[in-house]
């Protein structure tokens, strides 16, 4: 799984929208699209322990990404279904396309860990994984081991990569960008929030996901490498050891699900990303017609 990368990619998607969609896609929809897979699946991955009894998935990897399990929440198929539902409900292309792009970004980023995602669901339930770093959510280790493992492996590099992508497009964090590109994509939501918050507050809301991403990256890394004193193979370490090799870190069990050969995963993921952008680009203009007629019929009903 990816950690802060999921926060950064919201801004990366917003900053790299196709030209004709600039200023017209909902940032909230991108956020919710990116957020949905883990919102649906992750709470039970770690579970909760009450009075010594653990409530949660007995096989976190199977539950999170597999089938049967909540792995469907990390499939493009599910994202497309929800996207169709949003369009059928609201006839709002800013939300429909934003949600689709955010969701796709999450699903495609998650192919990097050793469990991967079921990219071709429902045609096959095989996982598509690059095995870049080890999936480390376990019943005994919980969230802490997962975080320590991620921020000791190439997962940390993945977070840094997405951070750099956002920083290269740093204008997407400015007040000017927010006013000209983000607010027009979602004027009703921002003006509704504007009842309570002034522009500085609204801008802070927009930047808050990025803030959370940066801070959690630093905080988890600091905890894992400075504060924690793990015992690995009977040896007390001052911080979890870094292992930036493929499949790392070595001190975590390498969990996998039945999967396709990793060699085809990167080209397939890139092709799917291109496909999603192509489809979004193609249906964008047609959706304008549907949205206008829906708005007209709404006005007539009033």
């Amino acid at each position, binding site marked *: 799984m990816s950690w802060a990368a999921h926060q950064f990619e919201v801004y990366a998607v917003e900053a790299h929208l196709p030209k004709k969609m600039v200023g017209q896609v909902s940032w909230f929809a991108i956020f919710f699209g990116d957020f949905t897979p883990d919102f649906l699946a992750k709470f039970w991955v770690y579970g909760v322990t009450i009075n010594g009894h653990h409530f949660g998935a007995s096989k976190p990897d199977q539950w999170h990404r597999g089938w049967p399990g909540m792995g469907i929440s990390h499939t493009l198929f599910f994202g497309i279904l929800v996207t169709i539902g949003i369009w059928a409900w609201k006839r709002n292309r*800013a939300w429909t396309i934003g949600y689709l792009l955010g969701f796709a970004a999450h699903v495609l980023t998650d192919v990097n860990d050793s469990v991967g995602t079921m990219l071709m669901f429902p045609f096959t339930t095989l996982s598509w994984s690059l095995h870049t770093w080890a999936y480390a959510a376990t019943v005994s280790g919980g969230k802490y081991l997962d975080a320590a493992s991620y921020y000791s492996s190439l997962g940390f590099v993945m977070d840094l990569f997405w951070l750099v992508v956002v920083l290269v497009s740093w204008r997407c964090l400015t007040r000017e960008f927010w*006013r000209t590109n983000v*607010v027009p994509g979602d004027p009703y939501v921002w003006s509704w929030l504007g009842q309570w918050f002034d522009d500085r507050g609204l801008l802070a809301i927009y930047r808050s996901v990025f*803030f959370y991403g940066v801070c959690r990256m630093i905080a*988890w890394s600091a905890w894992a490498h400075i504060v924690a004193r793990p015992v690995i193979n009977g040896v007390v370490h001052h911080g979890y050891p870094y292992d930036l090799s493929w499949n790392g870190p070595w001190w975590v069990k390498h969990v996998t699900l039945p999967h396709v050969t990793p060699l085809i995963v990167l080209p397939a993921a890139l092709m799917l990303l291109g496909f999603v952008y192509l489809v979004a680009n193609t249906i964008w203009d047609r959706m304008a017609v549907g949205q206008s007629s829906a708005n007209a019929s709404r006005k007539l009903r009033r």
Partner: protein
Amino acid sequence: MTETRRTRRPYPPPPPKWVDVLLYAGAAVSYIGFSVYFKWLLDWIVGPVWLVAWVWGIPALIRLVRHQPVRPPRGPRSAPASEEPR
């Protein structure tokens, strides 16, 4: 008979840029500092709320103490953008 009218204090201008920078930096340093030791703070709700609480909440609290309006004024100025939805 004397006519009394409640005069509403005007909404204060936004603080200078350096105050904003300080608030953002304060939010980041405090959030990272606390969450390293209290890891439950590293949550997708707490994190964003922490920033908004610092950047918007602290100045709002100061306005409240000074009996200035906390909510932004209604009208064209309150809308963040004048563009029509597309």
